[in-house]
């Protein structure tokens, strides 16, 4: 009986990995790194985590969790409330409808898929922000951020897949 409880606890812990790594990615993304100009183009680690888990374990990172994490990020980060939530839900939706193309194919497909999601997310954020502030913001930072995110994607993706393989398979 005792084994049953421990096993269940262990399983629950393992099942919470997608959610907790996504929250951790969000918090790590807010670290003050004191690199010149870094924070303007800081790669969206949260988006990467949501993308990865929505493809591999959508049963463990549910869409409403992506929404909740987005709201949390907006509250913590000072961005207009609802903006990140909107982006994450849309990204999740996109990934879910195209999931079979990414799953099982080579890493290149995964990467390409993320490139599309990153560009789309940047565009949605840019439009939403410009509408909200009634002010056309220069797209330079958004473009730079998306490019950097695409270039750096393999690093976090590798970390997620390590965790995925060791804890969830």
């Amino acid at each position: 009986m005792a084994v049953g409880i421990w096993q269940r606890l262990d399983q629950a812990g393992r099942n919470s990995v997608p959610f907790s790594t996504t929250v951790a990615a969000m918090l790590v993304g807010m670290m003050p790194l004191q690199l010149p100009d870094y924070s303007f183009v800081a790669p969206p680690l949260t988006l990467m985590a949501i993308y990865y888990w929505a493809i591999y374990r959508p049963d463990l990172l549910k869409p409403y969790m992506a929404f909740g994490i987005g709201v949390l990020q907006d509250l913590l980060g000072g961005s207009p409330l609802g903006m990140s939530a909107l982006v994450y839900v849309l990204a999740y939706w996109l990934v879910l409808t195209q999931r079979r193309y990414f799953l099982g194919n080579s890493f290149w497909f995964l990467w390409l898929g993320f490139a599309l999601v990153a560009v789309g997310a940047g565009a949605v954020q840019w439009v939403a922000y410009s509408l909200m502030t009634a002010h056309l913001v220069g797209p330079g930072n958004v473009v730079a951020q998306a490019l950097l995110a695409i270039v750096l994607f393999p690093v976090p993706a590798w970390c997620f897949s390590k965790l995925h393989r060791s804890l969830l398979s």
Partner: protein
Amino acid sequence: MRALLQRFSFLLMVLAAIGLMMMTRVDPVFIDAARARVTDAFAPILGFIARPAGAVASVLESGHQLTALYAENQRLREDNERLRQWQQTALRLEAENNSLRGLLAYKPDPAASYITARVIADPGGAFVRTLVVMAGQRDGVRRGQAAMAGQGVIGRVVQVGEWSSRILLVTDLNARIPVVLETTRQRAMLSGDNSDQPRLMYIPRGVEPTVGERVFTSGHGGLFPAGLPVGIVAATHDGETRVTPIVDLSRIEYVQLVDFGIPGGLAAEAAQPGGMQ
């Protein structure tokens, strides 16, 4: 049926997100309070992970400094020499000032008090320029206080929690600071636009700011006291003048929140819908 339900739930969440964006405009006070609560709740975690980040940054920094040690030493020696002379001048001027004030029965500004706080998060992103610091209401932080780092103004406090608060940097789209130019004493508004260099607005025609000229707070609107350095005029063309902040905003580790004891002061906040206000 399941697919339909799923699509419906996604639509619902998209609408909810848009609804939240609207709510920011309808009830910003409530949203602000929520932000403060959440930031408070996460401040210990953010503070914890900011420490190793600071350590890594300082290691990188010291490696960089080692390579430039000799030249830096030389420069500092010269600087020191020059500053000693300035110190003498400053002391003389201070004494003169004091005696003249005595003659005029001048009423000095209330003394300022400082709160020093560690930066625990730099949320970044392409749209907002804010910092979260580890000091809040219980440390005496109030909304609207000026935030300084080193020698210059970096922004002001826009959100105060119990033990954490948020600073809106001068480069943010929503930041407006009344300033005055050093040489012409021309007033202007320093207005952030999310770029590295905020813009000087409302300069009358014919007034040409010179590059390298310093920009100080003017004290108008009562938000900041007059005479705090903010930046240096970097470039001016086509009637658009850009100012480089005097403090390197990407390398702030500690922030001084300054309470100048001036009453009122929120009048100068230019209300912008959407982001932090």
